């Protein structure tokens, strides 16, 4: 029991004294996962909206692929990103394996299907005649898509949260493609794994608390949005 209490005591002092290493790891985590989420939003909202608004042969297969992708195991993504970025791999010339860039790539691959799936559902759940109403107001194709996306902004915000929540807490891919290099590619999750295995529980708990706090803030926001009345 002492072990745990002592761990928490030290952990809080690490968090509240803004320990340089802890701060560095946290900022890198936010940067990497934030960028990965941003990339997944650009691709995911575009693809999700496009699939939601068009009808083409094989569409049901595409939709089920997207839905399957929402549960992509991070270790599998990590495995394939590693293979592709391996010195002799197809993208080996980029020489980004074991860099933050590799983590961003892997996390984008994990988050994109999540964002795509939620965007697809969000746009599809808008009233069927809303698109016609926007066109009837004289909107161009681009204006129409923009107005529809804006109408779906609340559920799309959920896509942001889910995407970010998914990658900030992901460990498998980050450790495989990032290498957990101290001061360079070490993020909250990979650091927690390492510190725990070394028995540095105070550090591990500190990192865990920060991760929990981030996760809590994301979920609190999500809940707040979900509790808002749905637009007609």
């Amino acid at each position, binding site marked *: 029991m002492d072990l745990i209490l002592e761990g928490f005591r030290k952990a809080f002092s690490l968090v509240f004294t803004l320990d340089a290493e802890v701060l560095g790891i946290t900022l890198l985590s936010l940067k990497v996962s934030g960028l990965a989420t941003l990339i997944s939003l650009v691709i995911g909202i575009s693809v999700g909206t496009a699939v939601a608004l068009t009808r083409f042969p094989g569409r049901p297969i595409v939709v089920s692929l997207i839905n399957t992708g929402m549960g992509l195991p991070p270790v599998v993504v990590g495995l394939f990103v590693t293979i592709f970025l391996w010195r002799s791999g197809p993208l080996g010339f980029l020489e980004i394996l074991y860099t933050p860039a590799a983590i961003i790539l892997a996390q984008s691959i994990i988050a994109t299907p999540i964002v795509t799936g939620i965007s697809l559902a969000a746009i599809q759940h808008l009233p069927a005649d809303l698109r*016609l109403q926007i066109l*009837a107001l004289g909107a161009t194709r681009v204006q129409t898509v923009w107005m529809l996306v804006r109408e779906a902004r609340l559920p799309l915000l959920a896509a942001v949260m889910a995407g970010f929540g998914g990658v900030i807490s992901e460990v498998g891919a980050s450790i495989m493609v990032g290498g957990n290099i101290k001061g360079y590619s070490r993020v909250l999750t990979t650091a927690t794994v390492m510190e725990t295995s070394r028995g540095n529980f105070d550090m591990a708990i500190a990192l865990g608390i920060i991760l929990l706090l981030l996760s809590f803030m994301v979920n609190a926001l999500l809940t707040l949005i979900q509790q808002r009345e749905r637009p007609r």
Partner: protein
Amino acid sequence: MIPEGNAGILLGVEDLLVRRGGATVLDISRLQVFDGEVLSLIGPNGAGKSTLLLALSGLLKPLRGRLLFRGREIRDPFVYRRRVAMVFQEPLLFDMTVFDNVASGLRIRGLGRAEIRRAVSAYLERFGIGHLAGRSARKLSGGEAQRTSLARAFITQPEIIFLDEPFSALDSPTREGLVGDLERILCQTRTTAILSTHDQSEALRLAHRVAVIGGGRIMQVGPVDEVMNRPADGFVASFVGVETVLSGRVVRVSKGLFTASVKGGGEIEAVGAVRTGDPVLCCIRPENITISTDSKPAETSARNRFSGTIRKITPLGLFLRVHVDCGFELVSYLTSQSLEGLSLAPGKEVTASFKATAVHVIVRQSSPPA
């Protein structure tokens, strides 16, 4: 209003065909919409009214057919859609304020801020929702939401406005108020409107002409009173009901009773709150019209008596429909016993009578078509 002579056909449709899932949902060989008129599409649910409106508004590409706007074939539906507007049964408002909703059509057109503000204030007032400008569209009642939707459509000053059952989701008092306002605004702006409805009374109040739609086809099109009085076939008759509808103008008013002179030269007495000069539609149900062969004024309470000739007798199962030509046409229901007792036949001179209280009066803002 129907223009006299050869005045402008605003929208013309030729050989319009829409198929969905292998079935023909719309097959219109010809339809013309005149500049400034209110044309009502009436018909049961699933008749193709909404599909026709979508096709006419350039929102649905027909399998084949020609759409002519001001005499020219519509090539770019986008350009055409900026000149017309559409209001759906559901208000379909955006998740923003009432002001922003009403402004959306103008923003799409890239108008300046000041201009938009000016126009939006004017149209909010016009539709009686000025006090709601800053309210979120999610917090509106059904009537307020549909007013917002109408304001959003009218603000772009469309050359034609398409209204797809805009009142059918509203409760009856709300609908009554909104129909009245729409009537006033259509009259003020002289906007050409095509209004679909399954409610005959809306058509009677608002429309100059009526097109009855059934099974994707136009069963009959013509002035309101003509379609109501002379249904082209059983389908139209069963749908529009077989009231006698006479359009006329109030010539005298005294103590609640008024006299209207109707098309065809008769004067009808009826009860209602009207003023001299008001255009009115007088609707009389066939079961309220009595036919007699006695031409002398009898001692009855029926204030309206017209002599005429029987034009046509149609059997309707348990009873018969008798059309009497009195200069205008009156339709009455008779049992076969009465028919035999009075030995009625086409061409026979009769007297048709009905009470002033049997006349259902609809006061219109604009004059029904002459």
